[in-house]
């Protein structure tokens, strides 16, 4: 006896159609949520900031650190900006970039560079902004100390003829001012600016001005590097540029300290670091050059 097994009727759904529908639906859903109506941009974290905003944020961290000196707090804040790289090198890079793009036009910019450097250098990071704007040492104004000297009293020679008695004046007190080496006032760093120019590669261009803004020729400029090496040259030897001008060619990779006699502020230190610039649309690599102006203080 044969038993008839009825043919199974359709279940009502087509699994293939459902799978195709799900794939289509996911695609449409993602298109809508990512492109047409994405999540509104809010609750952004510092690491999601664009380059300019990130720089603002890091500058604020550095200025805050300059005030509160809390390096742990500064680190946590920097970590929020850059979770996946060395935060101190990031700060050094930002300082370097600000110097390269000549964002050092006024005291505010210089204070920012100092604050950034104050943050990254103690942590072992370094960059092309190192030492470009050293914090000036407090200046002590010591007026010449008057020296009190007594004039010797001359004993009159004995004479046979008694001389009439003249009234003798008491010994006089005379003020003799002690001469200072430069009575016209010391010099301070007036300007320090880096630039990248292949035609003017790795040059320290020094200019010295008196307090009236006139160029000072014949001023010795001493450049020190490598701890004990130094060279002295004089302003005014290139009169075609100006009586105040002198220059020195650096070796790439070295740091140089530049000083003149009577410098009241710290001697600026510059580094012959590599730099890049664009000329006629082509990237050109060279060595950073510096312009350093020394200005005589007004009394």
């Amino acid at each position, binding site marked *: 006896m044969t038993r008839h097994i009825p043919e199974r009727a*359709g279940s*009502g*759904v*087509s*699994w*293939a*159609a*459902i*799978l*195709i*529908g*799900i*794939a*289509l*639906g*996911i*695609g*449409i*859903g*993602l*298109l*809508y*949520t*990512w492109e047409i109506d*994405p*999540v509104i*941009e*809010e*609750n*952004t*974290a*510092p690491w*999601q*900031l*664009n380059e300019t*905003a990130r720089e*603002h*944020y890091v*500058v*604020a*961290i550095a*200025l*805050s650190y*300059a*005030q*509160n000196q809390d390096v742990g707090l500064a680190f946590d*804040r920097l970590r*929020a900006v850059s979770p996946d790289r060395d935060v101190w090198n990031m700060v050094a890079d930002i300082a370097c970039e600000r110097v390269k793009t000549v964002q050092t036009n006024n005291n*505010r910019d210089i*204070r920012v560079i100092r*604050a950034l450097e104050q943050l990254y250098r103690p942590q072992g990071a370094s960059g092309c902004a190192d030492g470009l704007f050293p914090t000036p040492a407090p200046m002590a104004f010591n007026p010449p100390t008057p020296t009190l000297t007594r004039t010797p009293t001359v004993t009159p020679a004995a004479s046979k003829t008694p001389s009439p008695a003249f009234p003798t004046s008491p010994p006089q007190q005379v003020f003799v001012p002690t001469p200072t080496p430069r009575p016209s006032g010391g010099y301070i760093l007036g300007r320090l600016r880096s630039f990248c120019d292949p035609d003017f590669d790795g040059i320290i261009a020094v200019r010295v001005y008196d307090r009236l803004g006139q160029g000072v020729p014949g001023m010795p400029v001493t450049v020190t590097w490598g701890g004990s090496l130094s060279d002295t040259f004089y302003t005014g030897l290139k009169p075609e540029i100006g009586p105040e001008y002198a220059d020195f060619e650096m070796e790439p990779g070295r740091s140089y300290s530049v000083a003149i006699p009577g410098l009241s502020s710290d001697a600026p230190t510059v580094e012959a670091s590599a730099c890049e610039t664009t000329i006629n649309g082509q990237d050109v690599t060279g060595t950073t050059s510096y312009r350093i102006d020394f200005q005589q203080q007004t009394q």
Partner: protein
Amino acid sequence: MTRRHVGSLLIGVIMGLAAGVFLGWQQFPVEYTNSSLSALAPHYQEEYTVMVAEGYQYDQDLDGALSRLQPLGMENIFRYIRELTERYISQSNVPAIPPLVALADALSSEPLPPAMEIYHSTPSPSSP
């Protein structure tokens, strides 16, 4: 295509749409990586403001502080600083209060409210 196929396709599309919206808005939302300071989360905006205020305490450069606050895109930066200061005082967020009070004082032409004044004035030495 039979009605059975069309029905199944519609059911699949509805299920897929639900999954897609869930994934796109909740699990893998768009992540912006080129944002401005005005898009920062409120917590970070406040932290940034406190840092700017500390910077003002450091360099006393009010113009500099204002130019740093401008990218936050606040409608009224003076009111924002004052309200944030008052809120921090009410929350006893002590380390952040003095710099914010100093900045609020520098920005305002009016005298500080008494609640801020106590954080602003330097306590005079007590006499024996």
